[in-house]
């Protein structure tokens, strides 16, 4: 409001302009403002207010960490403004992208499921390799989701025999100690042999 004050009135209030130079209307306004200022100066002060205010002003600043923690734990206003059309698009995308539980795969008449399980407590990665993935260690990794050292994978394979090995940490080739069936691989090692049963009876 003070910014809207006429510079002449402002000057008269500050004593920089002689009030006799003012018009009667301007002089009346100056007198009303004077009276208001006098009334304000008579307002009773809250006891101890100055001390409390100065105490807060002079209190040393909290550490940056403490201020950050206070900022994190204190409620902060969050304003989210979305146009209705955007809201509808987001809802539609969520409906399209959410497909529910992964359904079990459809198997052919001559296919079965092989479950590979191996215990390698110190391993960082385990893969199963065989002719079914061209012996590529990166093709069929086993998982150890609960980090208990037991790795497993379920793989859909044609019914019948399959030779395989495990590859630990990408470089160590290991025969499955639980397979029970083995054949020489022609390269100085032994492949484990798995017989996959067709899921559907013949």
């Amino acid at each position: 409001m003070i910014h809207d004050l006429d510079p002449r009135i402002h000057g008269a209030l500050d004593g920089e302009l002689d009030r006799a130079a003012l018009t009667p209307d301007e002089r009346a306004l100056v007198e009303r403002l004077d009276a208001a200022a006098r009334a304000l100066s008579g307002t009773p002060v809250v006891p101890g207010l100055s001390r409390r205010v100065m105490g807060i002003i002079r209190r040393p600043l909290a550490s940056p960490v403490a201020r950050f923690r206070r900022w994190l734990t204190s409620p902060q206003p969050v304003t989210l403004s979305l146009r209705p059309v955007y809201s509808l698009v987001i809802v539609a995308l969520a409906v399209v992208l959410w497909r529910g539980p992964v359904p079990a795969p459809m198997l052919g008449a001559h296919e079965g499921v092989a479950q590979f399980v191996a215990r390698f407590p110190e391993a960082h990665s385990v893969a199963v390799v065989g002719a079914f993935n061209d012996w590529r260690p990166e093709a069929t990794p086993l998982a150890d989701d609960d980090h208990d050292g037991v790795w497993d994978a379920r793989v859909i394979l044609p019914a019948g025999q399959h030779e395989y090995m495990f590859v630990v940490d990408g470089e160590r080739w290991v025969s499955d100690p639980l397979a029970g069936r083995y054949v020489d691989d022609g390269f100085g090692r032994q492949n484990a042999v798995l017989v996959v049963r067709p899921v559907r009876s013949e």
Partner: protein
Amino acid sequence: MTPLLLLLLLLPQQNDGRLAEHVPAAALPGVHAIITRAAQDSLPTEPLVEKALEGGAKGASPEMIVTAVGAEEARLRNARDLLRRAGAPGPYGTRELQSVSLALARGLPDRIVAEVVGSVKDTTPGFALHAVADLTAHGFGADSSAALIVAALGSGLSGQRLLDVAAAADRELQRGSTRPQALARVRSILPAVPSQPLPPGAMQGATRPKRSP
């Protein structure tokens, strides 16, 4: 005749990409020669390509890879000869030849394989041979194992149910039976050996393996 010649010309080219990418260059001429010879003799070539890829993945030397592929070809040829001698009607598919080849590799004598192959009618002998090999792996004699599986075939069992016969004999062993007792017990209940159903949820999360492009 012309289609056969075209096939022979195309086969090495089809396999070139996979082999060239994963098999040492020094092994390729020898591997190609074996594959071409096998194709000319109507033997399946895919097991030979797989054996070469296996050697490449395992870091085998070129000489070892060529030797292993040659041995695989010899096993397939031996398997086909055995099937012919056993009177099995041809032509023989890759799975059939590989089943016989693997049974021999697992230590079954030729005459036992021939006996089992001769007893299997209308289906491939794969599961029957696996069942016999499983029994011998558990210490049963080859002759008595083959006799049990032939008896199971005679009782009407076939395919993967023959694996249940071998599993039933193994369970009898685990229950404390001697091997002759186990065989006699299983033979007495044929064909009602318990089957092994797929455990609930066994297919959940199953994926198909990815092969080379």
